[in-house]
């Protein structure tokens, strides 16, 4: 899973840029709206009357409509929307959902190494798609069918404002969607928790062993339940743990009469709270640089450091407070990638060291390194104890250091990681090493995941209702889907607008398809002016698309948040807050646009 640390920037950093963005986007939207409004009414009434009509339209919007906004009227519209949705049998969606779950066993890989991740991804993806489709279909037919069946006549001839019709519908459909989503959440939760639950017993007999200190220990293996088994050890005190298999372990207890019991699975459904840091690098000579080595992957999420050189990755963590670590030690989670330039003994892990150093380099205070053996493809936890010793040159006296008092200054901690094995590499991105704070509640994280889905649903409803004020249902449906796609592929469109995509824009791409040209070869047409025209047209199209897409919600980033739940990461409350504020802003904008659409159209044909 890739984590974009800009998602984790502080709320105050974000809100400033968000407001600026909102202001610019609103300005563009207002100008475009006024220009289009003027063109339309200019055609209808002539240039001067048209301008008057636009000014009057904006004036009455504020003076007669927004100023007299009534919750009661909006509530009435919402109520009818709910009734209508229920009549349209939206609950069928729930039945489809239930069927998916009943037969989930057919297509979920039961042998998966990460069953919890699989189950969570499954429920979250299913719910997201079903709920988004539901939101789309429920809201896209409502207003157009009211207009087609003319029920709208008896509504708009009442003192209800267009803004209330738009907002009321959004609220009504959101209420229906919320109810269904809540139902799906409850079912999903039970499905995941029950699906993960299992009990082992001992297979065969316990094998007695003598421990290092000569005391009696036991080892054995569990029965195979839910497609896996564990090996386990029991210490002299009768307590032990199993190995980690399928993302979880059990604690084991042996009572006096020799009976062995296993706990329910541990660490399977959790909400890890990561504290991420900033990452920088040192090059082979030990000089600061902002990137490591590119080992040849085109894709550059991770950078690599070479073993046996001075190359290092340095993480700086801020805001570390002693009271957050009640047991006095800091759990550091490592998800390093290993790139081997030679195979060596494949079972022998590549080794690394980890230094904790005082953030102020002039103090030259470094703790003795902690060595570790990398675990590829699996997260490893290194506990940094409170009591450490100063890294010293041979002959110097040993000096005890306190992690919190001596090495962390103003809440800042620095960790340097180096690879120990010559010509082997460690790969890392900023999010690959983090401090693991005390876990959050899984159920709460699960709810947060559903809140994220809910926010997407709300935005989709708002977009659909907006389009349905102007367009007939099928066209509104297509328009919403296109908007979603453009919002979802914002990053791609941005790269296309910057000319970073091979193969050019849509026209060029079309010609390449017809000519069966490779994307990488230059576009060679017979007439250079045609080529020039095509490239210019593509450029203009890409720029317009870019501006448009940049103003839309970044659906991909929102969807990504639900992955957090599947990967057992806690979704930070601030992120939920940020998305909630953005969603609210978007709903406001879409309702405004919807209002002007509805206000400027004739509802009677």
């Amino acid at each position: 899973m890739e984590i974009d640390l800009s998602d984790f920037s502080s709320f105050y950093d974000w809100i400033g840029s968000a407001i600026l963005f909102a202001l610019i986007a609103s300005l563009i939207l207002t100008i475009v709206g006024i220009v289009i409004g003027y063109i339309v009414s200019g055609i209808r009434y002539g240039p001067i009357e048209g301008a008057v009509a636009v000014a009057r339209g904006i004036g009455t919007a504020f003076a007669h409509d927004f100023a007299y906004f009534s919750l009661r009227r909006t509530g009435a519209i919402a109520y009818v929307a709910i009734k209508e949705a229920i009549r349209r049998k939206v609950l069928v969606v729930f039945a489809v959902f239930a069927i998916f779950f009943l037969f989930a066993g057919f297509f979920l890989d039961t042998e998966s190494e990460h069953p919890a991740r699989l189950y969570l991804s499954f429920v979250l993806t299913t719910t997201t798609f079903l709920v988004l489709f539901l939101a789309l279909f429920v809201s896209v037919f409502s207003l157009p069918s009211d207009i087609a069946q003319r029920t709208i006549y008896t509504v708009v001839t009442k003192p209800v404002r267009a803004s209330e019709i738009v907002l009321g519908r959004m609220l009504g459909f959101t209420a229906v969607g919320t109810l269904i989503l809540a139902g799906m959440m409850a079912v999903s939760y039970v499905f995941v928790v029950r699906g993960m639950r299992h009990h082992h017993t001992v297979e065969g007999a316990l094998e007695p062993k003598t421990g290092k200190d000569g005391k009696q220990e036991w080892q054995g293996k569990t029965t195979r339940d839910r497609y896996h088994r564990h090996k386990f050890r029991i210490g002299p005190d009768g307590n032990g743990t199993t190995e980690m298999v399928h993302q979880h372990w059990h604690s084991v207890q042996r009572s006096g009469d020799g009976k062995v019991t296993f706990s329910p699975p541990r660490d399977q459904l959790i909400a890890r709270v990561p504290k991420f840091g900033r990452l920088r690098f040192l090059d082979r000579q030990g000089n600061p640089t902002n990137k490591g080595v590119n080992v040849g992957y085109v894709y550059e999420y991770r950078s690599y450091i070479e073993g046996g050189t001075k190359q290092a990755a340095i993480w700086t963590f801020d805001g570390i407070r002693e009271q957050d670590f009640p047991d006095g030690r800091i759990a550091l989670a490592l998800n390093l990638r290993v790139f081997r330039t030679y195979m060596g003994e494949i079972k022998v892990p590549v080794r690394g060291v980890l230094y904790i150093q005082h953030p102020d380099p002039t103090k030259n205070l470094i703790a003795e390194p902690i060595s570790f053996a990398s675990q590829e493809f699996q997260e490893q936890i290194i506990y940094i104890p409170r009591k450490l010793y100063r890294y010293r040159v041979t002959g110097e006296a040993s000096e005890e250091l306190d992690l919190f008092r001596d090495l962390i200054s103003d809440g800042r901690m620095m960790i340097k990681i180096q690879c120990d094995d010559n010509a082997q590499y460690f790969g890392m991105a900023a999010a690959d090493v983090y401090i693991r704070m005390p876990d959050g509640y899984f159920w709460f994280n699960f709810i947060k995941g559903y809140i994220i889905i809910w926010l997407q649903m709300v935005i989709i409803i708002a977009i659909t209702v907006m389009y349905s004020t102007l367009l007939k249902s099928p066209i509104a449906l297509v328009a919403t889907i296109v908007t979603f796609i453009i919002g979802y592929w914002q990053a791609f469109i941005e790269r296309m607008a910057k000319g970073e995509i091979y193969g050019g824009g849509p026209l060029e791409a079309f010609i390449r398809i017809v000519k069966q040209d490779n994307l990488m070869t230059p576009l060679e047409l017979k007439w250079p002016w045609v080529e020039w025209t095509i490239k210019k047209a593509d450029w203009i199209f890409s720029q317009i698309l870019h501006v448009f897409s940049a103003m839309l919600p970044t659906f991909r980033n929102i969807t990504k948040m639900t992955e957090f739940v599947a990967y057992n990461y806690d979704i930070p409350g601030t992120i939920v807050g940020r998305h909630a504020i953005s969603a609210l802003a978007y709903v406001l904008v879409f309702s405004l646009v919807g209002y002007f659409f509805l206000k400027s159209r004739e509802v009677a044909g």
Partner: protein
Amino acid sequence: MATDVASETAATESTATQPVIETQSLTKVFRDFWGREKVRAVKALDLKVQPGEIFGLLGPNGSGKSTTIKLILGLLFPTSGRALVFGKDATDARKNDRIGYLPEESYLYKFLNAEETLDFYGRLFNMPAAERRRRTNELIDMVKLNWARRRPLREYSKGMTRRIGLAQALINDPDLVLLDEPTTGLDPLGTDDMKEMILELKARGKTVVMCSHLLPDIQDVCDRVAILYNGELKEQGRLSDLLTVKDEIDVRLRALPPEGRKELDALVAKYGSEVVHESQATSTLKDLFMRIVRESEARPGKRAPGASSSSSDSH
């Protein structure tokens, strides 16, 4: 007669007051996708409706009656000219506070029942709950739908839908009621009820504008009419003035003996007058129908005694 007097007073007063509806060169052109003119539905219409009168818009199908009403309600935008209601532009939602509208067909939410329907429209007028309940009960009683108040509208007959449609139009006790073909689809009983309700509204000082192509209905209730043909205003005025044939009178006599007849002819000849039309008086089918229904209501299960005699009379 009493209503005539009332309307006359209202009409004289109205010269001083603001008209309830005023259209100034109201024109509506429907265009196709390419902006080419398809139909010119209303052409430079100038109308004034005064407070307290029942105003009829009549004309054949496609003459622009419904379009005019839609323009007045702001459901359509004028191509040129303007429509004012209570002095406000027709597109101003604030005018709707004082308007009740019964569309051509009652376009209501079929999945709501009568109570829910009226409650919904009451909420659109921002009425508090207690007032909505009171008004709902009153109106359901008035349109005689008490027995079906909990049934969803999809189960309603056409007449019942029409009645609940009227009830929703009156939920806010409007000063202006616009009725688009109010009697279409109603049986004669329902038509009479509707007409009675219209006259009652007038008696309570409301202004009613109705459009219809059922001329008898218009004639029975309207004070003034405007006749549209092909989107143009052809005639406008008080119904009594428009329909009076100044130099002719209708006489209907019973039991006139032959000698009396001769004297009458002599009298006509003496004054140089001329008999324009003369026929054997007949009852109307409507009168017959109404009598049968009334008698059947009085004596259920029996064949109405007058029915056969009346029918034989008419042969």
